[in-house]
């Protein structure tokens, strides 16, 4: 299997962490140890400090490392802190940024059409993946409301909580064709097998949650799940390759 992690970060968090990984080089060393080939990464300062602080740190950190694809975080454009869509996409192409994140609670805005509709409409039209971390900075009813406004959005729901959130995300998988779930925190016994049976292997992405979680936890869980080998390959990395390739930057 070829693992392409959709959900990991580097950088020192402001909160205590048992095993932080400050640099992109440290992240790559741990990826090599675990057998993870590539990763869609972000920098913890994007959440802890500001997108204006963290995005440049991410850009600089991944610059020498083509195995790492960046994932900037958004801000609304009305306050003139963040570029308009056309300029944003140009910068993303220039800096190997393949996807975007939003931390609306931490960054003090509402993730809706009124506030950030210009960006969300463009992101939806160009099929650029947006990653939302449920346990960090967005609530389930906000995710549901966002998709009601932008039903074609390519949305990856990350870190959805280790206590079995199927009743929150399965309705979204059923209704919206471009919604994906990452495996970080999907510890539920039989969860992968059940989700693949109901929605196919195309809707699940391998994500580790590293450095807060080990790469190997969901690697072994996926490897031993009772699903076909081609489904494992898709979840391990194929699906992420596809949705990044579909993005029109």
């Amino acid at each position, binding site marked *: 299997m070829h693992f392409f992690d959709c959900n990991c970060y580097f950088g020192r968090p402001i909160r205590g962490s*048992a095993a932080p990984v400050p640099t992109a080089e440290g992240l790559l060393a741990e990826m090599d140890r675990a057998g993870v080939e590539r990763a869609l990464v972000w920098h913890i300062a994007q959440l802890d400090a500001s997108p204006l602080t963290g995005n440049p740190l991410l850009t600089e950190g991944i610059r020498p490392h083509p195995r790492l694809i960046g994932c900037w975080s958004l801000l609304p454009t009305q306050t003139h802190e963040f570029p308009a869509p056309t300029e944003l996409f140009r910068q993303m192409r220039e800096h190997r940024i393949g996807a975007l994140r939003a931390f609306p609670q931490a960054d003090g805005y509402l993730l809706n059409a009124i506030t950030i509709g210009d960006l969300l409409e463009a992101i939806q039209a160009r099929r650029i993946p947006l990653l939302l971390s449920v346990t960090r900075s967005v609530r389930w009813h906000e995710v549901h409301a966002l998709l009601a406004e932008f039903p074609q959005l390519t949305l990856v729901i990350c870190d959805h909580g280790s206590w079995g959130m199927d009743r929150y995300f399965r309705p979204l998988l059923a209704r919206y064709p471009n919604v994906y779930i990452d495996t970080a925190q999907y510890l539920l016994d039989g969860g992968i097998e059940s989700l693949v049976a109901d929605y196919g292997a195309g809707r699940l992405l391998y994500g580790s949650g590293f450095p*807060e979680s080990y790469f190997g936890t*969901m690697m072994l869980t996926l490897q031993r799940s009772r699903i076909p080998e081609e489904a494992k390959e898709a979840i391990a990395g194929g699906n992420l390759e596809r949705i990044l390739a579909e993005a029109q930057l």
Partner: protein
Amino acid sequence: MIGPSALSREFWETGQSAACPIYDMHGHMGPWSAIYFPRGETDQMIRTMDECGVRMLCFTHHSALRCPDLGNAPSIEAVRRYPDRLRAYCLINGNHPDLVERDVAAFAQYRDVYVGFKFLSDYFAVPLSDPRNRPAWEYADQHKLLVLCHTWGGSPYDGPAEVRRMAERYPNLRLLMGHSCHGEWDEAIKLARDLPNVYLELTAVFDDRGILEKFVRGVGSERMLFGTDLPWFDPHHAVGALLSADISDEDRHNIMHRNAEKLLAPFLGKE
């Protein structure tokens, strides 16, 4: 592959290891209000155990935890269906002293079923040291039973101070700190260092990278026990954490089976 060790290769290729069976010391069974379980019933859980090389699961049925009207009966029934694979903890809820008295009095009738007691104090809002729980603690101490306590950092009901109080008061029982006082890792280490009858049970610890290494360095793997809350968490997730952590295969053997085999020996007729 997720690591260079021999155990890593075996689990990666076959999902289990004959030389390293798993004793899961913290499980449940049946429905729970806030969660969908694809494999929550007894037969489904046995299937998971077979796939992951889990030789035995010590558990408390969710009905015992959440429905006093059903109590421990579903746990007893499941163990008697699978006596070679399951053992139960008798649930104690101090909000119902009549049931505590009844279940402690009946404990001896179920020595083929029970290995000890289970406390879920945070959920019941009854501290471990509450006098209403006393009959169970005294019985457990007298008979050298295992006592699995849900423990959580910062909790006034089952945080480190309560654990210390009970482990000191009842030195003959084995107190298994479920979730290892989650979040108050240094306090958990201190408790296990100070008190020889306290064990670090690892359910919900496996998802916190770096804590396994911290525990092995701080206490030693001889005091750590595998647990998953099955059917909440896939055992392969926990095994993946153990194989990923910077610890030795000897540590993994201790955590997955050796320590539990010693603790369970008196209850399995092996002592």
